[in-house]
């Protein structure tokens, strides 16, 4: 009776990207985060390429050894995070708690070191608006080691990028503490490890952003 189009069989439910809601949601959210960091990092690249003069050479203002250690910490925290995930997939509650705690400690230390670094930089005269008059760094400017023309946007971009990264780490640590408490109460199992996997994705993403930032902000 009816037209062919009507008689198409109901296609098998091809629902989903094959992943559960929370994980899918986190990946979608990370897409948004990529664009957010694109705005910040992209602006930095653009400002740097179009800068009216040479940029401060690496290592003159920023403390490379300390940040290299911080990079190491964040990489460690990523491993501990993925270990936590592997543990709960295997159903090992004890290891899950151990690795989560390790991740929290690494993350919190990272933030602590960054706060220390900021305090130190500000003390030496490096501000979001540029170099403070009469500070230690102002002498470098006077001596010509530190280009004056770009010092202003150097501070602007540095604090904005690393600041928002640090903010993301802080949020990550807070969420992780929440996951940790849930783990203490046995909230995860080998059949439902959603919270651990989802916070893990976020955590690794923040680590990934830092890897990029470390190179283009500190080393270049």
């Amino acid at each position, binding site marked *: *009776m*009816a*037209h062919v*189009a*009507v*008689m*198409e*069989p*109901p*296609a*098998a*439910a*091809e*629902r*989903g*990207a*094959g*992943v*559960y*809601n*929370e994980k*899918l*949601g986190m990946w*979608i*959210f990370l*897409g*948004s*985060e990529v*664009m*957010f*960091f*694109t*705005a*910040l990092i992209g*602006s930095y690249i*653009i*400002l740097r390429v*179009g*800068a*009216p*003069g040479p940029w401060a050479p690496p290592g003159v203002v920023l403390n490379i050894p300390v940040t290299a250690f911080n990079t190491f910490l964040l990489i460690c925290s990523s491993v501990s995070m993925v270990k936590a995930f592997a543990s709960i997939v295997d159903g090992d509650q004890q290891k899950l708690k151990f690795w989560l705690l390790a991740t929290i400690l690494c993350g919190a230390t990272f933030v602590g070191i960054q706060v220390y670094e900021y305090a130190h930089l500000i003390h030496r005269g490096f*501000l*979001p*608006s*540029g170099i403070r008059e009469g500070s230690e760094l102002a002498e470098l400017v006077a001596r010509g080691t530190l280009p004056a*023309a*770009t*010092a*202003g*946007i150097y*501070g*602007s*971009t540095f*604090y*904005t990028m690393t600041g*928002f990264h640090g903010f993301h780490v802080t949020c990550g640590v807070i969420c992780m503490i929440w996951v940790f408490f849930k783990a203490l109460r046995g909230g995860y199992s080998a*059949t*439902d490890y*959603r919270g651990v996997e989802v916070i893990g994705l976020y955590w690794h993403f923040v680590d990934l952003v830092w890897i990029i930032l470390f190179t283009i902000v500190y080393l270049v």
Partner: protein
Amino acid sequence: MATTAATFDQVGHASHVDDRSFIRKYIFSTDHKIIGIQFLIMSLLFLALGGALAMMMRWQLGFPGRPLPGGSVLPETMAPGGVLLPEFYNSLVTMHGTFMVFFAIMPLLVGVFGNFLIPLKIGAPDMAFPRLNMASFWVAVSSGIIMLAGFLAEGGHAGAGWTAYAPLSETPEYSGVSLGQQLWCVSLIVLGLSSMLGAVNYIATVINLRAPGMTWFRLPLSIWALFITAILVLLAIPILAGGVIMLLFDQTIGTHFFQPAAGGQVLLWQHLFWFFGHPEVYILILPAMGMVSDIIANGSRKPIFGYHSMVFAIMGIGFLGWIVWGHHMFQSGMNPTLGQTFMISTLLIAVPSAIKTFNWLGTMWRGNLHFHVPMMHSVAFVAMFVIGGLSGVFMATTPVDIYIHDTYFIVAHIHYVLFGGSLFALFGAITYWYPKMFGRMMNPFWGKVHFWLTFVFYNLTFFPMHQLGLHGHMRRLYDPTQYEFLRALQPINRFISISAFLLFASQAIFALNFILSWFRGRKAEANPWRDNTLEWSVPSPPPHGNFAATPTVYRGAYEYSVPGADDDYLPQHRRLPTDPAPAPQPAGH
């Protein structure tokens, strides 16, 4: 694969007894239908406010320097003796654009219809993340309150246009505005958070919660459009947030992103803003296009013409929208060679738009046209969007844009696509889904009166703006009579203003119809428009949880006038004897 999804799937249960308290049910509700209605009320209020600001602007433009009737209630800092001050006029333009774009049309399309329609039309009990959804609304409300607070700020509200070009927008010495602009920034950052939460939700919901049989190419076009729109929101809004954060930091903590004296780049702001801004204008039209497609097929009692090309056209517009932002910056001092490439990519958007336009015509061709109120608005949408789209071609052409950039030709374009396009579609969509939202019909007689008055006065208001632009009338001009060559145009300005007042007054009919029908409208049956999609298979309004049992879908959304069927529509969930039995549901459903 399937196992994981099934193991964790908690949603998908049938509706259950509703025992929530009043507050959980209507204020902090996680029900997507209630959240949609909350967004509707919020954004209609902002629409009315944006309209009121436009009326003040039109008064000043039509009758420069004369005291605004009733304007003496405004404080001295805005309008001493009722005469608008230039700085207040700038705030009016800015806030008119901001409210209309960010607080009226965008939440109406995405917040209201994204929320209300997606779960219902794909056969899901709710969104993938109902609590995030609730958060999204209340975050949007806070953002609106912050934006409104700007009017009380010392120095006045933001006044650098809705595009907030730096350095005017970030330097109080140049603009006289400081706190107002900062609140503008904070509000948009907060609103960005709300939109992002919404977008994550919509995308995840469409991907994961479609009912059995609801394949991608059986989705109604409104859902396709909302899905692509959500992707645009997801990826564009963070760019705006990033840019606005830099703008805010320049004002508050002394950074120099957009300050050339300290090494910043002025054009960087424009690049960031428009990289967001152009996808944004498609955010403001795609859902309208989708809903219009649904309504036109229904009003024509005919399958939508070229369903697949319609879907690909939506994707095409969505993608091309990312590579055309430079067309707002042709005269900005941007690299002229880059301008050439932006001209070509911009012109190419005419192609998917043409596909959509002609497929709407194709849908009506040999149809059986019923002119219910939503259909009238949808037909007007097609007619008006074409005018706005074609005027876009003038501006896309770089040499012609040299002349008409930043003139009223652009203002005419804006309003043909945004009012003639989006807002007409919204009037139609609100009338169409009103019964599903509130269980009552809007009054069709007053709906038609409102339509005709709006259609006529809208054209009388905005069509002559093309002429103003062609004679060089600049935008954002407090008092055009300062220029000799514009004085001759003052009669047009006055004519436009009077039409605009009548246009605004006509909206009272819609407001009254909307409010009164809520209490006194005719009770609506489940499927008053004899439509095919799933939301019409459940009572009006649908119960908490939407569907008594997860529906199974057997066909596309547009099977109207199928030969041999006993009615002129064939719902997606109706199983014909020839249809194979539904696949057994996986455990957990």
